[in-house]
């Protein structure tokens, strides 16, 4: 898929033909849907695993009020259902709220939409950051370490070229430095994407969780990105990856806020086989944490060309 960054009209004033989000245990998963409800013509949700939490029930109730429909209940049905529901050959405005979607799900949604979307369609990625909660210490569960989905594994015709990593920093304790060694990439050449949040407590937590890595690298390896400027961040990731891909196999590992995962996937859409987007996950063994919206709405609109 090729696209241009669309001049961002105020999203609250723009009609959305199809709006795709997720129902899960996070209360924030319905924040954007509620905020934009008067603009949404057709609302769809992907049902995530029900851990029996109260928040799940209340989110379901909100979506019922908004008259959203169930798109699908599992990952394997995402593409089939999107191709069935989203009409072909129409210029549409499609919104995707990635706030509560697992990274593999949002990647699958974006990839499925690239097959379906006609030039002229506007794709808007939406995200609401969570209210700050103190992150847990220690290592989380890891049951998967590989491409975010197979469509973004990339394909290198130069397997002898050295791999290089662009790593988004999150507050998973020491995970970034762990994955650098796991992938056998050169730590002295890794590019680290450091988020700048509106709530500075997140930034502090990210620094703390990655202290071991930050103490070992040159400051010039760190690229700061503003969470509320996704268009700039997309351009940054794409241009860095493009530049590095001449001499290296580029692996993007987008730890951190979920929107960085989606921006990485969009970069991979532009750069195609030159880039791998990687995911490390505990899947269903991660402790479900109910995250509430901070009240901010961040979005990026792209025009498919």
């Amino acid at each position, binding site marked *: 898929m090729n696209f241009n960054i669309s001049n961002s009209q105020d999203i609250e004033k723009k009609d959305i033909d199809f709006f795709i989000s997720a129902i899960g245990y996070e209360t924030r998963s319905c924040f954007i849907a509620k905020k934009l409800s008067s603009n949404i013509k057709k609302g769809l949700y992907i049902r995530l695993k029900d851990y029996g939490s109260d928040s799940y029930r209340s989110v379901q109730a909100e979506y019922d009020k908004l008259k959203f429909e169930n798109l699908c209940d599992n990952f394997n049905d995402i593409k089939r259902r999107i191709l069935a529901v989203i009409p072909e050959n129409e210029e549409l405005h499609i919104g995707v709220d990635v706030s509560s979607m697992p990274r593999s799900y949002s990647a699958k949604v974006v990839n499925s939409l690239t097959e379906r979307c006609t030039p002229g369609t506007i794709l808007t990625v939406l995200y609401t950051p969570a209210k700050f909660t103190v992150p847990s210490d220690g290592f989380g569960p890891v049951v998967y370490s590989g*491409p975010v989905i197979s469509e973004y594994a*990339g394909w290198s015709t130069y397997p002898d070229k050295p791999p290089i990593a662009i790593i988004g920093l999150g507050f998973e304790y020491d995970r970034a430095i762990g994955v650098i*060694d*796991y*992938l056998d990439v050169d730590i002295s050449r890794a590019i680290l994407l450091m988020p700048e949040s509106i709530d500075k407590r997140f930034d502090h937590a990210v620094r703390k969780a990655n202290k071991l890595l930050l103490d070992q690298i*040159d400051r010039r390896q760190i690229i700061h990105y503003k969470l509320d400027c996704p268009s700039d961040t997309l351009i940054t990731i794409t241009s860095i990856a493009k530049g590095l891909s001449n001499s290296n196999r580029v692996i993007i590992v987008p730890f951190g806020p979920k929107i960085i995962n989606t921006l990485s996937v969009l970069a991979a859409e532009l750069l195609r086989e030159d880039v791998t987007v990687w995911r490390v996950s505990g899947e269903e063994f991660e402790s479900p944490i109910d995250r509430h919206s901070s009240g901010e709405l961040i979005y990026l609109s792209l025009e498919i060309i």
Partner: protein
Amino acid sequence: MENKLGLFESLNARHLTPEEVAQRFISPEVFDELVLPTNSIIIGPRGSGKTTLLKMLQIPAIKNWSHVKKDEHLNSITYISAFIPTDITWKEQWSTIDQSAINSQTKQLIKDSVFVTHVIRSILEGVRHCLEIINSSNPRLSELSINLSKDDERKVCELVSDLIKIPCEIPSVEFLEFSLRRRLVDLGALINSIRVNPSGSDYPEYINLPFAETLSGLISIINLVIKRPNQKWAFLFDELEIAPEGIRQKLIRLLRSTYDQNIILKLSISPYSEDFDLFGDPSSPSAENDYKAINLWYSTKEDARPFCKKLFEQVCKRYGVDDATPETILGFSEFDLGNKLNSLSGTAYASNSLLVQRFKSLYKKDSSFREYIQKRGVDLNSIDKMNEEERASKIRKITNIVCVRDTFLRDSGEKSTKRRPSLYTGATSILDITEGNPRLFLGIVSKLIKVYSQKRVQVNASFQAKTILESSDRFRALLGTIAVKVENEEHKNLNELLDDIGNFIYKEVVIKKFSADPPTCFIVDDLTPKNVQNALGKALNAGAIVYMPENPGHALIEDLKKKRFRLSNLLAPHYKIPMLASKARQLSSILKSKYPEPSTPYTKDIFDESN
């Protein structure tokens, strides 16, 4: 961009060209065996030097290597090498075919085809290396050089193109390499189209190329054209555990000496894989007849020390401090005080010595240790008057345990301002922590030698301790990223499993009644759950646990059951345990005991320098 690590600390040979590898290369004894024109399997965990050793067999590396043994080794290198790299990221790319709906046989053919294309391209790269040394002044290198006239080059390209079913628009080796990359593009497109439309794809003829026969045919063509029918070729397959399963199994079978006499296989592999049961088959290759197994790990710290010392000397030379000994730079380890000083001056056991202070300190605070010492009739004020044999059995044997126990058992209700060096620092301890693993060694020790070289003053214990802790934390971060299968919500990452083992040993050594022989090893018994065995296999390949075979020999493991292991010494500071391989306990009983990490009031932090 400034490299904080410095020139000599680029720790991973994967990132280096053969020339750069040669600049940094410290030749272990096993290299003498590896260079021989025979099949080899190099076995070792991460960072043990497998890639470095294979890359050193390439012509650009040997050419750029300055060493007294260079010519001697060149006499053995009668073969042209082709280095075939692989890594996790690349493996994940061609593994995406597994998610398609086509049959498994076709999946295997496509994966093999990707790998074969990669191998052929690597062989042609090897040919290019030989073309580049045509004017070498070294007679041995000159013998390996290839001189291809335009006509010869055309012949090679035409015959190879026909063999591997590839168009030959421009008859040059370089264009052939380009065409192979183009083939990889086509294979990527094929995999994508299969994913979208499994039944609608056409399969090109070349995916049926047989692996062994194709490689054999390729070098036969080259040998024919260069008129060297007996020219040997060495295919250096790195990280074989990442190769497609079909290729891996074929390569293992090809180690039989009945394969092509002009092909030598040198394979590098991690110690554990479930398909190593191939070696158990009666028709499988044997270590005595068909290949040489080269182990790059050490069961005991004593085995690792000679190589560590050699590494140490080489790094000192590079920093211009070759007159310094490990003890000059790092001081003496508490664990080693009895062994070192005793032989020098006999003062290690004087009543006011550091070692005896340790024993007395523990004697004072630990009634079970008191009981132990009294039962054996040891007078702590007269250890220096004991004969050597008695001292060895009653004192030296328990020194490691006493040091750890004394360090981490808090004096009840007492405070002391006495400062003590951090327990795991000092020359012998630092070398032992690295387990003879070059990557680990260079990561820890190079930093310390560099600091010494700047001021020529012994590196202080707290900086040594900080460096060890950073390495240990980094290692655990890596282990925390390795995916494991979780059952019953237990051991959701590798560190949780290792924590169970480490905390158990800590309890046995520090918390329970004093024992001169606490269990510090474990045996994977039949009651160990399968998912735990799988996780331990990954831990072994990562170097987090070390295999302790009863008999030295074959180090390839396809089944962990009934085998004895210990934790890596690098994890000893984290778990507050001695670097000691003593008796073993069944793993299933360790996992059942589930000792939580001790709470702070009872025990001290590892690098607490005050009492």
